[in-house]
């Protein structure tokens, strides 16, 4: 069923060369994402769980005020997720070491290089901008929530309480601000620079440098460098990411790859089924015709036999009639002769 992407590309590429005259498309392509796209490196070892980022986010995005004030850190005691009213949340994880040292880390949209939400959206409500953010356009959104199914980080949220105009709500990477050259709200608010902001390449460099310089402090893994094809938010941590509830089993396949194979077979079916089906149809039709042919012959034969029989019967009947007639005549003649003989004896 699922044609390999390579094969599909080759197929499309061939079409491309002929139909579109575009550059050699037959080779399997590799996409590096937007050069110079912006990125945040979240150094989890530096996060102090002050929720300043949540405050900043709430302020710059004009989100509704929270149920509990941001200054109240008790909310950290239970795990939270992004909601339609909060684009980002800080969570606390108690290290399983001897002294239960709390580890804080921030969660928000990771702005994938190849966003699953965008790949899944059937009205292209999501766009991967060249600045690196994945933005959402509510003016076309139908509200099918397939993006929420698709997102491997379970980030997009939905305004379930909106009867007629529900939107998908998620971090925008402060796209309007970033394009103006400002920092994202959370980054600007972070007092410890647990969030570093810059070009993705630079942030990767920074992350590697930190790992090299302080081998003891970090696990040797930059989360988001390759996960799901890479993201524009990167993470450094002192404990394995899975301990923080960040999935390490996502793999490196970009989301669009996952469905492209299946989609690639659509043209095949559309083009080949008609031939196949009409072929079968033709066969069955032909069989049928042959059958009907036989039937006619059979009928004809039956008729012929029937005629023959009736003929025979007829002739037989006529014979009989003839014989009876003759007998009757002879009888009549005989009686006549006898009578005449009797007459002559009396005279």
């Amino acid at each position, binding site marked *: *069923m699922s044609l390999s992407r390579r094969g599909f590309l080759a197929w499309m590429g061939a079409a491309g060369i002929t139909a579109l005259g575009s550059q050699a498309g037959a080779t399997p392509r590799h996409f590096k994402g937007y050069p110079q796209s912006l990125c945040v490196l979240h150094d989890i070892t530096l996060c102090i769980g002050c929720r300043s980022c949540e405050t900043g986010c709430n302020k710059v995005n004009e989100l509704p005020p929270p149920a509990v004030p941001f200054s109240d850190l008790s909310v950290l005691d239970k795990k939270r997720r992004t909601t339609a009213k909060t684009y980002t949340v800080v969570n606390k994880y108690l290290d399983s070491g001897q002294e239960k040292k709390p580890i804080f880390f921030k969660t928000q949209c990771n702005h994938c290089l190849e966003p699953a939400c965008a790949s899944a959206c059937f009205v292209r409500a999501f766009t991967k901008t060249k600045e690196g953010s994945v933005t959402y356009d509510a003016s076309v959104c*139908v*509200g099918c*929530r397939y993006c929420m*199914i698709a997102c491997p980080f379970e980030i997009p949220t939905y305004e379930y309480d909106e009867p007629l105009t529900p939107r998908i709500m998620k971090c925008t990477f402060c796209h309007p601000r970033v394009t103006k050259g400002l920092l994202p709200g959370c980054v600007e608010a972070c007092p410890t620079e647990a969030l570093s902001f810059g070009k993705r390449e630079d942030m990767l460099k920074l992350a590697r440098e930190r790992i090299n310089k302080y081998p003891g402090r970090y696990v040797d893994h930059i989360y988001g460098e390759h996960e799901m094809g890479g993201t524009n938010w990167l993470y450094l941590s002192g404990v394995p990411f899975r301990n923080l509830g960040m999935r390490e089993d996502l793999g490196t396949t970009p989301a669009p790859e996952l469905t*492209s194979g299946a989609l690639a077979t659509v043209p095949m079916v559309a083009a080949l089924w008609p031939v196949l089906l009409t072929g079968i149809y033709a066969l069955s039709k032909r069989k*049928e015709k042959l059958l009907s042919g036989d039937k006619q012959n059979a009928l004809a034969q039956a008729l012929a036999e029937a005629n023959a029989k009736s003929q025979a019967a007829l002739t037989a009947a006529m014979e009989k009639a003839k014989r009876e007639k003759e007998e009757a005549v002879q009888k009549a003649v005989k009686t006549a002769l006898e009578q005449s003989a009797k007459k002559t004896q009396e005279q």
Partner: protein
Amino acid sequence: MFKLSDVLNRSLLTPFNIIAGIILFIGLIITALRFTGGLAAVTNLSDYNPWGLWIGFDLLCGVALAAGGYVTSAAVYIFGMKKYHSAVRPAILTGFLGYALVVLALNYDVGRPWRLPYPFVVQAGTTSVLFEVGACVLLYLVVLFIEFTPAASEWLGLKRARNLVVRLTMLLTILGVILSTLHQSSLGALFLIAPSKLHPLWYSQYIPVFFFISSIIAGLSMVIFEGSLTHRYFAAKMDETHLREKEDVVFGFGKAASFVLAAYFAVKVFGIAMDDNWRYLSTSYGAWFLVELIGFVALPCLLYAAGVREKNIRLIKWTAAWAVLGIVVNRFNVCLVAFNWHLPSSERYFPSWMEIGLSVFIVTVGVVAFKFIVTYMPILYEHPGYKTPHP
């Protein structure tokens, strides 16, 4: 051939009507709630569980169980199994109703229903599997509608026009099969994008194939199943052709279903082998998977076979019901049970009574519509005026 009088004379307070009435009433209330309070007011959906019963049952099962239309018409018109001809119209009808109801249900689930055509008129997200599903379902609904409208061209009695109509049936049938192939499989492909959320035993690169094959099973089984129901409740409406061919349909489709089930079983096993998921079989999810595979694929396969060999019509009918249930179980597993398996049970989804209520409502609407149509239109018998000239 029925008399209008005995319809009029029947009192409207039959138990069926009463129950249906109640359900429809409740459904309307839920509808009101949905479109005033939003999904939050009526569903248990959450940010972790964006798709619930209305997708799992109304969409996935709805579409699968409405597969009878394309299966039957393909069998009769393409594979030339004329002896099942009487089964076509009911199948087409249920297919049409099924898809209509799916679309109806979507209007509840989707945030802004009036935007459903957007992907095709405003902005097309061609990388989305959902786009393909949408397109195919939409087109197929139209196709079914045309197939459902009686062949008007016969009235005109023009030979050319008639040939054209005959060709049109072919065209529609082929188109129907293409569209069904595509969207039945794509409903499975929808989940290809979430390998991290769907349990490995159900996630497979073959999931589109699974969905397509199982839709054929669903189609065949539904035809048998409905056939037995209609026969029970609408025998009066059936003409002797239908009554005569009914048996053939049951045995023929039963045989087909059995064989397809065998193939389905095989591909499911291949699925496990391809991703080397054997070890999961020993887990609790594995147990449940085996229940599905053995109880709802292997078992009906064998029961069908037995029924066909022993000419046991009742066995086949019950098996059909079981197989249909099996398809429902499968769709539930993919969409609800095995999806988000990684989440703690506190975050898992279970439908609210109102969600269930609405699904029941949708089904009831379907039943009522079916009842109405078969009562007043020539579905289970051929109208003497337009005897279709089939040998």
